[in-house]
Every structure is written in structure tokens, then in C-alpha cells.
């Protein structure tokens, strides 16, 4: 069992790294999908069957496709992304590393979470999660509809194609040179 965990863990970490490192966005997407799948594997290991399914459907099925779709739509699949300067990248890696170190250092003496006595392996099943979702978590569930509605409105509002590019310029003309003109009247 633990070997399976290690396997999935290795896959997810490597694919995650690849997401970050990949030159082409499509490659990133693919590795992210791999990563997500491996995470789904973890879910299954944890007997969270419902989550595993939803995860694959939502992430791999919807979100990642959306990503791919956008990449295609905007024709971003060029590895022409200008690299950040070396210093920035080193700093980024250092920051990530330091952050990880800090976190790991924090738990070096154990996480201090006691193992509960009783155990119910079935909580990850659809039935259990569903019960919880539609009883205790009903209100958030309903309210999340608002979230989606907003997201939809947003997508429509922002994603709609604007008439011409010229308007952009005029819209901003008032700001022209503002940064330069920012002298303080004293």
C-alpha cells in the first residue's frame, strides 16, 4: 500500500515540477493532467471514491480542457514565452525552497495529530459524502450557486469580444502620461 503511495507521490511531484518547468503550455497542461490523475490515485488510496471521480471529472475533464481550449483559442502554444531573468528565477526557486523548508521544519517534530480511536473507512463513499453535503452543507451548497452565477456572468461579460481595438486607446487616452506627470503640488 505504502509503495502505491510512493509511486503516486513520485508521479505527482515529478509531473508538478514538469508543469512548472515545461516550455510549452500544452506540455504543462499535459503534465498537470498527469499530476491530477496521480492525485486521484491518492484519493482512491484514501478510499475517497466520490472525490476521486469528481476530481477526474472536474479537473481533468473540465478545467484542463478549458485550459487547453484557451491555449488553442489564443494560440499560446508557442514556446516563445520570454523567460524571466535568471535572478528572478533563482529567487523564485529559492523562495519556493525556503517556503518548503520552513513548512517541513515546522513539522520536523511530528505533526502532533492524534489518531482517533474509532475509524470509519466509508466516509469517502458517495453515500456518506452526499449525506453530509445535503444536510450539514446544504446552505453553502445553495449559496455556491451564487458563485457560479457570478462566474458565468463574468465569463460572459469579460470574454465577449469587444467591438474594436480603437476604443481601448481612447478609453485610456485620459491617463496618457499620468505617471510621468505625477508631480506633487507642494
Amino acid at each position: 500500500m505504502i509503495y502505491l503511495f510512493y509511486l503516486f507521490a513520485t508521479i505527482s511531484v515529478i509531473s508538478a515540477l514538469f508543469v512548472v518547468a515545461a516550455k510549452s503550455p500544452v506540455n504543462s497542461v499535459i503534465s498537470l493532467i498527469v499530476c491530477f490523475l496521480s492525485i486521484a490515485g491518492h484519493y482512491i488510496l484514501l478510499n475517497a471514491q466520490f472525490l476521486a471521480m469528481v476530481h477526474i471529472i472536474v479537473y481533468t475533464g473540465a478545467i484542463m480542457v478549458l485550459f487547453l481550449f484557451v491555449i488553442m483559442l489564443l494560440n499560446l502554444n508557442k514556446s516563445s514565452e520570454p523567460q524571466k531573468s535568471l535572478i528572478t528565477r533563482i529567487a523564485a526557486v529559492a523562495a519556493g525552497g525556503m517556503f518548503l523548508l520552513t513548512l517541513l521544519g515546522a513539522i520536523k517534530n511530528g505533526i502532533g495529530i492524534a489518531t482517533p480511536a474509532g475509524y470509519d473507512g466509508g466516509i469517502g463513499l458517495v453515500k456518506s459524502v452526499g449525506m453530509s453535503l445535503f444536510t450539514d452543507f446544504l446552505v453553502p451548497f445553495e449559496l455556491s450557486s451564487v458563485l457560479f452565477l457570478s462566474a458565468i456572468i463574468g465569463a460572459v461579460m469579460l470574454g465577449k469580444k469587444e467591438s474594436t481595438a480603437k476604443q481601448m486607446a481612447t478609453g485610456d487616452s485620459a491617463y496618457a502620461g499620468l505617471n510621468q506627470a505625477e508631480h506633487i503640488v507642494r
Partner: protein
Amino acid sequence: MSALILTSVLGVILLYLGLFGGKKLLAPVGILGLLGAIVLFVMDKQYINVTQFANMLSFDAMGISFSIGLLVITILIFIFGIDYYANEEKNVAEQFALMVFSVTGALMMVSYTNLLSLFLGVEILSIPLYILAGGKRNSMRSGEASFKYFLLGSFASAFLLMGIALIYGVCASFELPKVMAMAATSGTNILFLLGCFFVIVGMTFKVAAVPFHFWSPDVYEGAPTLVTTFMATVVKMAAFAALYRFVTMIGMPPAVGKALLAIAIVTLLVGNITALRQSHFKRLMAYSSIAHSGFLLMAILSNSANTPSVLFYYTFTYALATVGLFIVFTVAKRAANGDEHIRIFRGLFRNQPWIGVMLLVMMLSLAGIPPFAGFFAKVNVFMLALGAGQIGLTVFAVVMALVGIYYYAVVIREAFTASENDSVLVVAPSNLLVISLCGIAVLVLGVMPGWLL
């Protein structure tokens, strides 16, 4: 709860209104709906102080006062919206609706008793705002603001989530009472502390505290003024209420207290000092908002019985003044053909004495000069901090308050200096109404703070 339902439904109604061309009706209906929500809050006695919906929300005294405050501010912004969107054809309904949705999220944030409600509240509050910030679709600045806000906001959300997850890991529950009970016993658990820390990171991002403040000047500047107003007021109120709830829940372990203290200090410093050399009004207000976050964090830090009322008084009066000022700004900006430098206020008093006086009142309130509301707000914060034994912090805050007065005074000075060219300021009646309401409220609440508490 009925109010939550009402606001959610109100958003949909507004969308439909927009769909069927009732543009003129948007704001009135919105205002009516929000008023209705206020009425519902006042009426719905059965929910008061009772943790409802499987420990998701609890409309206790603090929740209700903040909710009503939020709704009042939103109403004011809606009235502002009448004039603000008067010349716009597209997407007006959507923007109003998004604001209503956002308020719904804010209402959740101020009365959550479950970390899930907090998280959802934050997201419901934020996602409409990401969109609203990009509301001026033909403006690069608006887009940039939207994007910055979104990206940084999501980034912060990730931390918030991480924090919640860690807390859950230790406490095995998302419900505040249970977490509180666990915090009492295992408050020093390292994961728990990490969790608290990350949640605070997420929340302080929303209140624009240093070092998570970077978004605010840029977003304030780029977003449409109305949205900026909304962000500066509603978001701040909601986020502070949420932060306070969270802090009381975890009972302020020393490590968290230290983190908050450090954040408060740098926030005060950066907010006030950076604003000194700022002459772009919206950015100035952003830094001012950061600075005020610093003061509010002091109140949070003290974590005493008075903190909620002080927080409410502070945020509400701050919001009133900010709304009024942004409207004055909009008016002046129009007269100055879109310039946003503070020099646009020049000649304001001569041109429109009443508006000038109102600007003065609101600015002074923000600066914390008596007898305006900001004064008692600050005093109470100081007293809370002193009550908690934070003498050094208070001294520092006092010095920073002094620095703060300077940049407000600079704006006042501009407004009360005669201008070279007499451009005519046109103030729509609705705007005049809001400005006057805000100004007078700030004054009245400053003189009689008891009426609000």
C-alpha cells in the same frame, strides 16, 4: 438567512431587468432589495444569536450590525451607481448584480461560524469583484487591475485554503465552536499554528495589509471608481469582521499575536509613509486604506470584548467617508476630463462650497481629527491597544496617524485652494445626496458615537 436569500434572488432579478431593458429601474430595484434585506435583518429575530444551518452561519449582534452596515454602504454605492452608470449602455445590470452577489458573500463572511462559510464567503465576495474590476472593458488599466486582483487574490486564496486544511487536520472540524474548543487544548500544535497563520495571510490579503497589500493601489487605480469604492468599503468591512471572528475563534495564540503585531506595524508604516508622496487620488486612497487596515489590525490584536463594536464603528465610518470621497472624486474627475491627480480638487470649495465642506469633513474623519467619526474610531483603537498593554505599538500608531494627517491635509489644501481655471462641477442630485449623507453621517456619528454602537 432570508436576507441572504433575498440578496441572491435580487441579483438574478437585476440580471433579468437588464435583459429586458429596464436599465433605469436597476438601481432603484437594487436599492429596494437591499433595503428589504436590511428590514429582514431587523425583523428576523428568530435567527438572532442562534447558530443556524448546521453551524454554518450565526447572525449574532456583530454579524447583524456588520450586515446592516454593509447593506447601507452598498445602498449608498448603488445610489452613486445611478449617476455613474448613467452613460453606459452595456453590462450595467451585470455589474449591479455582481455587486449584489458580492455583498452576499460579504454577508456570509461577517456571520460565518464554519470555515467553509468563510471560504465560500470570501470567494463569493471576491469573484464578482475580479470581474467588476475589469468592468471597463475597453480600458487597459481596468483589465490590468482585474487581472492583478484576480491573480493575487487566487494566490492568497490558496493560502487561506491551506490554512483551513491544516486547522481541519488538527481540529477535525470546520465548525468554529469545535475549533475553539480544540484551540483551547491543542492551541500550540504546530500545524494548527501554521493553519492559523495561513488563514490570517489569506484574510490580511483581503484587508490589504502589508506585505499582502501590493494589489490594492494598482487595483484601486485601475478599477472603475465605483468598484474601487466598493472594494475599499464593503470588502474591508467584511474582511475585518471575518478576521475578527477567526481571531476570537483561535483565541489568539502568542505566535499568531506576534504575526499580527508585525503585520500591523509594517502596515501602519508602509501605508502611511508611502501615501505621503502619492498624488494620484485613488492610489492615495488605497494607501490610506492600507493605513487604516493597520489601525484596525491593532483593534483585532487587542481582542477584547469591545473589539467588535470598535471594529464596526471604525469600518463603518471609514466606509462612509470613503464612499463620499470617491463620489466627490468622480465628480471632480469628470470636470477635469479624467485626470486623477489630486490637483483636480483645486477650486472645489470655491466652485461648490457644500461639496468642499463635505470633502473636508470626510477627509478629516479619515485623518482622525475630532469631532468627526474617524476620531473616536482611532481613539478607541488606541484605547483597545493600550488596554491590551501594547504601549509601544500605540505610540508607533500615533506617530503614523500624524503622518497620515499630512496627506489628507494635502488633499484638503488642494480643495481649498483657488484654481486657475474655473471648470464647472456638475453634481448629479443622487451624488449630492450620497455625499451629503456620508458627510453628515460622519459628523453626526463623530459627535454622537453612541448612536451607532
